[in-house]
């Protein structure tokens, strides 16, 4: 998704994260809007942008930090948090080394279209 959109929207800050962590609050502090895109094992096949806000709940481990927690930390540390959206891409096959299933690949293509439209509207 990122490699596809990077060339099309060079002005957008498109970044990959293995996992979110506390320093991402610093990354977000000057953003106008942010989209968190990730795979999900739940929900339907049609990806949509869902607006989210800061939430103080925090996981027990730094291995897991939710987008809402990063937004909350950003707000508390820097006095503001950007508008934020979640873009969940439904996946089906989570075994090691299998790559994307056909349905997940189709969902990823749909999600890329959704994100492309969002970026063009904000450009």
């Amino acid at each position, binding site marked *: 998704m990122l490699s596809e959109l990077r060339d099309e929207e060079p002005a957008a800050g498109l970044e990959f994260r293995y996992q979110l962590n506390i*320093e991402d609050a610093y990354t977000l502090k000057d953003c106008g809007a942010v989209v968190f895109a990730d795979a999900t094992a739940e929900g339907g096949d049609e990806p949509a942008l869902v607006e989210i806000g800061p939430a*103080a709940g925090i996981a*027990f*481990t730094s*291995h*897991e930090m939710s987008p809402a927690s990063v937004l909350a*930390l950003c707000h508390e*540390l820097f006095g503001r948090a950007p508008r934020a959206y979640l873009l969940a891409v439904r996946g089906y096959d989570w075994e090691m080394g299998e790559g994307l299933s056909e349905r997940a690949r189709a969902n990823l293509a749909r999600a890329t279209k959704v994100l492309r439209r969002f970026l063009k509207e904000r450009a």
Partner: protein
Amino acid sequence: MARKITIEPVTRVEGHGKVTIHLDDAGKVTQTRFHIVEFRGFEKFIQGHPYWEVPVLVQRLCGICPVSHHLAAAKAMDVIAGVGPADLTPTAEKMRRLMHYGQIFQSHALHFFHLASPDLLFGADADPAIRNIIGVALKHRDLAVKGVLMRKFGQEIIKATAGKKIHGTGAIPGGINKNLSPEERDAFLKAPDPLNADTMVAWAQFAVDFFKDFHKKNTALVDGFAAFPSNHLSLIRKDGALDFYHGALRAVDADGKKVLDDADYQDYLEHIGEDVRSWSYMKFPYLRSLGKADGWYRVGPLARLNTCDFIPTPLAQKEFEIYKAYTAGKPNAMSLHTHWARLIELLHAGEVVRDLLNDKDLQGTDLVRKGRKAYEGVGLVEAPRGTLFHHYRINADDQIEMANLIVSTTHNNEPMNRAVNWVAMNVLEGRKEITEGMLNRVEIAIRAYDPCLSCATHALGRMPLSVELVDARGGLIDKKER
């Protein structure tokens, strides 16, 4: 009535575990266990892969300390590639050191500010809703900003040396695949405040001073909580200096007597045994010379400052002298002093990063050496949480045939179990009501060791920790999960 307490998940530790506390009918503690309840078998997954892929593959064990696995594996593959530690080019060794000390810096900052400081700032009995980094941000914004930016600085060092902040590719068998350009160097040395090397050292000193002040105000808690004697193990530089990247093995007993010294880690199997117990997937390592019952030991910041003779940077050495004077030079057995030791190491890592950035060898172009291939190799580093062992054997087709990993959290298995037992005996025993604050003290004891259960079990996915309270007949009385 007899009871059993379960804490699941233990919060603000890296991974997934379970604590069970068994009480008899009189409320006396009869058994405590810190269980690791997941298994992943990473050593099996990598069998059949060519050896040069291992430094990149194996770091997928963890998203917090991948650099440790990357470098321990690379050091083992150096041996297999026929390149000894002294044979690496200066650029290769110093780039690896910069990567590693950058990682120590970010990991120690993350642990202290994100995981540990809420307990210190708000107390064990505070509302769990504020006992986290966002609570710290609300009440102590300046401290939280420092924590976030120190973590970011360390991650940027890793990116500059390994190519990526998480799961980079910098170290390869026999060397490194890039140097540090003058532009990359200047981004750390000349960046406007606060994200430059000098400010990071100053902030690390601030963190040490913060803890010393907390200690002064809370001496009984910091000195008494989960304090128990043990042996201690770490890598040590040949001259006795603290060294996170390379050295020989040294172990001291509770009185400071060296029970293992200047031991080549290629021969670690002669010195370290691994016991197994039916109730945990995590092994229990021990010093063979002392046997299974008495040979268990601590690793990590507390152990490292107990085994080393000095710290080879001035600010950290000054703090080390204060720290050592507190126990009159004897090994420190106080679990919460691990935070103090960790912050002195944070300061040392900051100083080393700053000094390395000023070393022109990092702009060298001689990156890789080759030698005569061997079929077996061991690589060790001092990871943020303690000594990390990687041992591999390959076949004639260069494929991994055998792998054995002993991670820091595994070394600390017995000490963490002892720490849980201490809390059960000293905080929970005989109490009619088990409060959330009491259970948090169990977690505080575990958290001091900064365990990474994902590394220890090589597990993936959601990794909570629970505490269970069980009666004398095995019935579950209470269970806390987060």
